[in-house]
């Protein structure tokens, strides 16, 4: 969306990311998604009377890795209690960081050349998850509420940007780039659909050149699409309100994905007083320089550096190739693509099979070596495998492992003899005279029809290019 003439939006994002630790932040319970409700719980993460938290060192390390990647200053920090009553928070306070966060300051450079400042990236614990039955699906008016405490005590880092973002597109780019960084640091799996990355957006509008307007905070945007739509809706709402003579009220708003609109959750005047104070059950956190250095040395290259390295391999990338490149960066599949390019595989193919086939079965990457990826693509490029067959070979290796040549053989994938292909094409022309006539008259779309029929008859063994060549000779 473009803002109306003379208007500017000002956006800052608060991104909560769950840290990919084996255990929770303050106890030994497994940190996994999708277990049966209330099975990954213990006296500590249930906040039972008498239990005490003990900080997970791995969570601290991942927080430091995030801070290092965002050019933050890692500082001696403390934990505070944020006090408020809510049934999914078993102690009725959240352990968080307040005036002294572990990561202070920093910035994130975006692929579009802009820079967004980072105010802080601090550690805190996640709450449980409530499900409200009946009513609107929110706590007020629900018939019953059920709470799953599996998520209670899962470590989070909250990354707060400065109010530097000026469009929903930039917000999306920031969130996507940050997601790439979180994955690259090993801190997060970046799975927004599972809630491992959740975004709150602070949105205000102003007439160009004027002071900052009153902001509204939109909570829990759980996809990049929601983020973009919610910011656009909210900015437009505020402009319309002001142009109509109204004023924006500082409040927290809820984004309704189905309605495509935001609505008031609570106004600032009603906001809780969280009565922050130092968490007396934890000691101060002051990672020494040696520890900070170890974290820095262990960091893998960040997306920006990897993107530049891959782009350097491409002469005149088309938009589809650039899209595939972003997927490859996002999912960390660089090594496959680089190996393929090194072996002389065409860039389109080298990127496409990674961005599509490998991306569709990320759990299987342990089964697929870069060598196997290259070998499969070379077979495809040399015509020993059709595209369909190559995809099938990759899928099989990702699922069950194996070597490309033997997988292809066991699937019966052999190059179709050119004579055999000619026979099939001739038969199809006989059986489909109307389609053949239209193709001969110049309707190129019919080529796809014939390719499809050939594939069906040869069980995918034919190569599309060979079919077209065969058709051309008979045209």
């Amino acid at each position: 969306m473009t803002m109306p003439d003379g208007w500017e939006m000002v956006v800052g994002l608060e991104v909560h990311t769950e840290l990919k630790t084996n255990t929770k932040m303050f106890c030994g319970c497994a940190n996994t998604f999708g277990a049966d409700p209330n099975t990954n719980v213990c006296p500590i993460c249930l906040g039972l009377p008498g239990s005490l938290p003990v900080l997970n060192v791995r969570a601290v390390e991942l927080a430091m890795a995030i801070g290092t990647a965002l050019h933050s200053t890692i500082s001696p920090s403390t934990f505070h209690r944020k006090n408020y009553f809510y049934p999914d928070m078993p102690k009725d306070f959240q352990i968080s960081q307040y005036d002294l966060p572990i990561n202070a300051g920093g910035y994130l450079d975006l692929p579009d050349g802009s820079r967004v400042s980072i105010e802080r990236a601090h550690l805190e614990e996640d709450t449980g998850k409530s499900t409200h039955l009946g009513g609107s699906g929110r706590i007020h008016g629900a018939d019953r509420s059920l709470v799953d405490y599996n998520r209670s005590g899962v470590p989070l880092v909250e990354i707060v940007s400065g109010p530097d973002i000026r469009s929903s597109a930039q917000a999306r780019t920031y969130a996507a780039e940050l997601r790439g960084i979180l994955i690259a640091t090993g801190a997060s799996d970046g799975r927004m659909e599972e809630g491992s990355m959740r975004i709150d957006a602070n949105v205000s509008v102003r007439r160009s050149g004027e002071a900052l307007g009153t902001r509204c905070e939109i909570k829990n945007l759980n996809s990049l699409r929601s983020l973009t739509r919610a910011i656009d809706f909210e900015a437009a709402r505020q402009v319309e309100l002001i142009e109509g003579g109204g004023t924006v009220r500082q409040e927290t708003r809820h984004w309704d994905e189905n309605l495509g609109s935001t609505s008031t959750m609570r106004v600032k005047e009603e906001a809780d007083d969280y009565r922050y104070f130092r968490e007396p059950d934890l000691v101060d956190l002051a990672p020494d320089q040696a520890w900070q250095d170890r974290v820095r040395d262990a960091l893998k290259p960040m997306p920006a550096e990897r993107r530049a390295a891959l782009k350097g391999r491409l002469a005149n990338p088309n938009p589809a190739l650039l899209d595939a490149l972003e997927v490859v960066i996002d999912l960390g599949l660089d090594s496959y693509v680089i190996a393929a390019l090194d072996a002389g595989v065409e860039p389109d193919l080298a990127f496409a099979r990674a961005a599509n086939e490998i991306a569709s079965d990320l759990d299987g990457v342990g089964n697929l070596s870069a060598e196997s990826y290259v070998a499969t693509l070379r077979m495809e490029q040399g015509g020993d495998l059709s595209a369909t067959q190559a995809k099938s070979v990759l899928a099989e290796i990702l699922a069950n492992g194996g070597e490309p040549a033997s997988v292809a053989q066991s699937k019966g994938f052999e190059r179709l003899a050119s004579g055999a292909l000619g026979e099939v094409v001739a038969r199809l022309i006989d059986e489909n005279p109307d389609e053949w006539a239209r193709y001969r008259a110049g309707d190129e779309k019919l080529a796809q029809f014939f390719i499809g029929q050939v594939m069906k008859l040869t069980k995918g063994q034919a190569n599309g290019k060979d079919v077209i060549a065969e058709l051309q000779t008979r045209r």
Partner: protein
Amino acid sequence: MRNVRDTARDVQNGDASALSVLEESLAQIRRRNEELNVFLHVDEDGARAAANAIDGRIARGENVGALAGVPVALKDNLCQTNIPTTCSSKILEGWRPPYNATVVDRLLAAGAIPVGKTNLDEFAMGSSTENSAFGPTRNPLDTSRVPGGSSGGSAAAVAADMTPLALGSDTGGSIRQPAALCGLIGVKPSYGLVSRYGLIAFASSLDQIGPLTKTVTDAAMALEVIAGHDPLDSTSLPEPSPSLVAHVEDGVAGKRIGVVRELIDGADADVVASVERAVEALKEAGATIIELSVPEFRLGLSAYYLIAPAEASSNLARFDGVRYGLRVDGDDVTSMMEATRTAGFGEEVKRRIMLGTYALSAGYYDAYYGQALKVRTLTIDAFRRAYHQADLLLGATTPSVAFEFGSKTADPMAMYLSDVFTIPSNLSGEPAISVPFGTGEAGLPIGVQLLGPGRSEGQLFAGARVLEIADGRP
């Protein structure tokens, strides 16, 4: 009832069975518990099973630990697996913890026999055990008087010869004050010496678990067992348990002992006289006595009554009816929580939750909680200066002997003043011990208090032993 040392020795040697010791303990509980209201729960079956297990191990020639067969009473804010744990509050009635406090595990590992859970001021908030939802505990030495608090049930258990050892918790004096009022040794260890895991928190930065016993040696034996690093408590000191029993007979020759005016001023004349006689006894044993004034101690009470309620307001938030304990239904979750907390908490607990909530609120934090933290720092600095001049400090434990029921309940401030001499050690996190020394009004015991710098428990036991001998208990 025999003391801890003799009981453990007899059981270890096979001169007495753990079961016979236990039966003696249970019989005394049956004789006096109805009158005194000491135990809220007695686990006869569990205790017998534990005693039989000890006897079986002794029969097989196994090493059974330093507290073999010693019956122990647990303040009912300490978690023991599957044993009702109430904090003397209706809000936790019926709750059974699924785990042991670290101190309970350590007692069991040392062969001790937990017999039951003792009464306290609700959530350890009080100085007389009159704030219990399950009725007050009576002082076994004079049943018209309070045993002190909040560990009043634990003190009464030992004073009434029900068990030779009890554990209490001390947030502002809650072990030392009832020890003084019941004529016992009571120890508030250095903060972090004893794990708080499984102690239901009142004020986390002040709470410490410690023993109540009849003799100094017994207290040292018990503290050695429960002290030492615990990975489950982040504030636990890193070292293993110190050697304490070995230092009980070290004496005080050559030690500098500071008599602190602010730990005596305002006490009754009989209490002051006891402290003066304690000074003479220490001098006679070779200590150098120094008169000290530490004016910062006067500020301690005010700081304490902001810091402790502030932490409590947060620690007690979890009792909301959602997961365990009492639930009073309401129209929605908020009204359910309100109704539960209104019905479940007693007056004193509510008073402190409100005080603490107020002290932490935006706009008041700096003036109250923030200011109290500054006073706490001043207190710590004042102790440090005092310990440049003296090795240990001496004062009264309480301003008076045990008082009568109802005499202070109408005036919270009068009750709070019971803790004026004990609070400074909680603010600084340093150890202190109360030792019976002489008697006062109506022949009731008087406690004097020795205070020391962090981890000086060995020296405190040595000083306390000198006083114990001088008071006629060789």
